[in-house]
């Protein structure tokens, strides 16, 4: 009885607190909503005390399309085109882990050349995604040149995709069992030319954006996410690596041929917005090295895919595979009951996991820091909503 009374008292106090909060004239509720130009397909309601943010209420779900449920009504191959929709410009990576999980379920091995081609597509897509993200990050800090440059250079990589997959953005190139088709004639030289040019451009990005004192002033020491908190909150990808944890799925659980590739896991110890915005840039530099190595080591000829039956039945069981996408660890958990369709597909998206850090970081910061913190989280609302 007394326990219940205590609980009622607590509830009353809490409701009084809420009433007091809403009546407090000092606070201003500001909706950074889906129509606000600074948020993407996402809304968060912030409460302002002067210029300081005292409360953040993230409200995702504006672009929820039920991809997981849709998977249960299509067979393993029909799932491919719809599963790349959540991350359009990172479609190789979002399909990569699905293909790995299906292959693990069925128990087949992809031919060596197919593995290389898939890895190259994955790295190229990481460049495309990161450039897109960098463009958005630039424009939301008011740097219009940083919007135009990556958005323009992105076209070069997209042209490469068009050469070997026939599509520009959603190419649906990785399939269970390998890749759809082999590289066209003379692709290696073309790819190397583009990557070399792109590396030159990356240096220019650094000059105009990352070394800009005004950009440094805005991001250094802003939105600090300490190492312990980053691990506790469960963030992944560039956000985790910016907090000083060298965690990369390509190194931790190497898939396909990544154990043969020599690359560094970039991490920084400053834990601030600058680190979170600089790590994807360093990843792009690293991706260029990886692509060069992959092109060198790739076998000259060979099969690129294992032919699977169109409506193959998955053996009963489950599988879970992760890859390092442009935003962090992206995993698929597939449960099969022996039918030609999966029983359940669960996507673990890095965006949703990084979103958790948003309210943690924004509370106590200034309104002017909001874009630099929010976009540094490498958050892609469409992927988070699935």
């Amino acid at each position: 009885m007394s326990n219940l009374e205590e609980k009622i008292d607590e509830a009353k106090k809490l409701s009084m607190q809420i009433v007091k909060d809403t009546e407090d004239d000092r606070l201003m509720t500001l909706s950074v909503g889906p129509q606000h130009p600074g948020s993407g397909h996402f809304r968060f309601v912030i409460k302002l005390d002067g210029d300081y943010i005292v409360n953040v209420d993230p409200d995702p779900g504006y672009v929820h399309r039920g991809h997981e449920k849709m998977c249960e009504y299509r067979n393993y191959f029909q799932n491919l085109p719809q599963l790349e929709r959540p991350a359009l410009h990172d479609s190789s990576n979002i399909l990569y882990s699905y293909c790995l999980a299906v292959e693990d379920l069925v128990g087949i091995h992809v031919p060596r050349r197919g593995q290389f081609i898939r890895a190259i597509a994955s790295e190229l897509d990481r460049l495309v995604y990161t450039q897109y993200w960098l463009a958005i990050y630039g424009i939301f800090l008011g740097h219009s040149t940083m919007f135009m440059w990556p958005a323009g250079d992105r076209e070069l990589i997209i042209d490469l995709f068009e050469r070997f997959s026939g599509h520009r953005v959603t190419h649906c190139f990785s399939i269970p069992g390998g890749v759809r088709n082999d590289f066209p004639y003379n692709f290696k030289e073309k790819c190397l030319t583009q990557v070399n040019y792109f590396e030159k451009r990356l240096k220019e990005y650094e000059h105009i954006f990352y070394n800009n004192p005004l950009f440094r002033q805005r991001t250094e020491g802003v939105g600090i996410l300490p190492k312990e908190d980053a691990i506790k909150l469960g963030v992944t990808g560039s956000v985790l690596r910016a907090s000083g944890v060298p965690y990369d799925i390509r190194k931790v659980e190497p898939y396909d041929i990544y154990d043969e590739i020599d690359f560094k896991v970039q991490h920084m110890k400053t834990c601030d917005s600058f680190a979170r915005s600089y790590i994807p840039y360093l990843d792009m530099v690293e991706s260029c090295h990886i692509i060069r190595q992959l092109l060198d080591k790739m076998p000259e000829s060979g099969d690129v895919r294992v032919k699977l039956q169109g409506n193959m039945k998955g053996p009963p069981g489950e599988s879970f595979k992760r890859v390092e996408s442009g935003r962090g660890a992206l995993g698929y958990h597939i449960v099969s009951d022996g039918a030609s369709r999966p029983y359940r597909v669960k996507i673990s998206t890095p965006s949703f996991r990084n979103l958790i850090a948003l309210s943690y970081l924004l509370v106590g910061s200034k309104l002017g820091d909001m874009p630099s913190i929010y976009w540094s989280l490498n958050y892609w609302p469409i992927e988070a909503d699935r």
Partner: protein
Amino acid sequence: MGSITPDFRFGNLVGSIIQLVLVILAIVTVLILPMIFFALFFVPLPVVNGQVLTPYLFFSMVVDPSRTLPIVKFLMHTALFKAAIFPGFLFASLIAAATIFIERKLLAKMQLRVGPLYAGKVEGIFQLLADGLKLISKEIIVPSGADKPIFWLAPVMFVSTSAAVVSLIPVAYGWVVADLDVGLIAAFALLGFFPLIALLYSWASNSKYPFLGGLRALHQMIAFEIPFFLSALPVVILSGSLNLTEIARSQNIFWNIFVMPINAFVFYISSLAELERIPFDLPEAESEIVAGWLTETSGMIFGLIQLGSYLKLYALSALFVILFLGGWYGPQIFPHELIPGASSSNISLLKIIALDGLYNAVTVNSIFWFTIKTFGIILLMLITRGVNPRIRIDILLHTGWYKLIVLTFINLFVVLTLIYGGILGPGGIILPK
């Protein structure tokens, strides 16, 4: 687009032009000439060339081309011409239009784009015209709960205050709309109206984002007004006058920027903040507060505010040129007569072509150099938009209230020391005799 239609005939073109000319002539004879006569008989006319202008004299002068020039000269020195056309509103608006075009093209070149390309056949030169027409034809949406009189009045106030600043700017000796003895103070006083207008408009919009933007505009402009005034102080001390014409004339051999580079820099930074241009475009920071105090602007209200801000850009660049870059002084590159020997000859056609009596080599040269210098400063102000991100408000206030004020004082003391040491005088460095 941009090509000749297949059924084009040159003869048709000539025919239509002739038809047009005939129609215009008919309208002039039937309607406009009687109206002019009517007006001229009832309006008291001024004295031109020592003769009282009568309608008969006016028409004889118009018909005889050699006698037209005095009328044009007389009209060019009326106050209305100065305020409305040159060096007033029209001139400033044309410079503002050119600035917008140059800004778009320059930024496009910096950002691997082409910029406006289709409107007008050459490089999208009429894009601004198309944009203006679009803005005029758009509906003006007034938010419910808005303070309507202020909502409608604020854009007009914005443009008129900008035009008032423009009217204080001399583009050549004697070519100024309002030649005030306290011209510099008047300019600063007028600039002090802008935060008020921004705040009024943001309050009248009855919306949260404009309100935050208006407060930011107020903070920013007030923080930068003090270094703005202080940076112009050594110029006044050196030239001994607040009249902008006198300030420019005091620099005919020696530009102020050589002795006060820090102040010129502070003036430039403060102008950027005053103009709300990147990196100081906090009042319009789109990723934070949508469009700041301009969020609820639509249609021509937006157009007017844009026009006002580009007029302001011209006015502040011109002020920089007058205060630090020696105003309109530069090497004489125009000949003293357009056609040598035209004024002494008896051929009237030659006199007309040479614009005898109208053409003044020194004035034309002054206007030329003034425009060139102003465009240089405008370019400098545009370029920051391409290379810088937005600054944060606390850094901005720190810069305005602390760093820039200290910098202005350093330069002020340097100039005072030089003056009292007898090294510097109104004409520049005093050479030992």
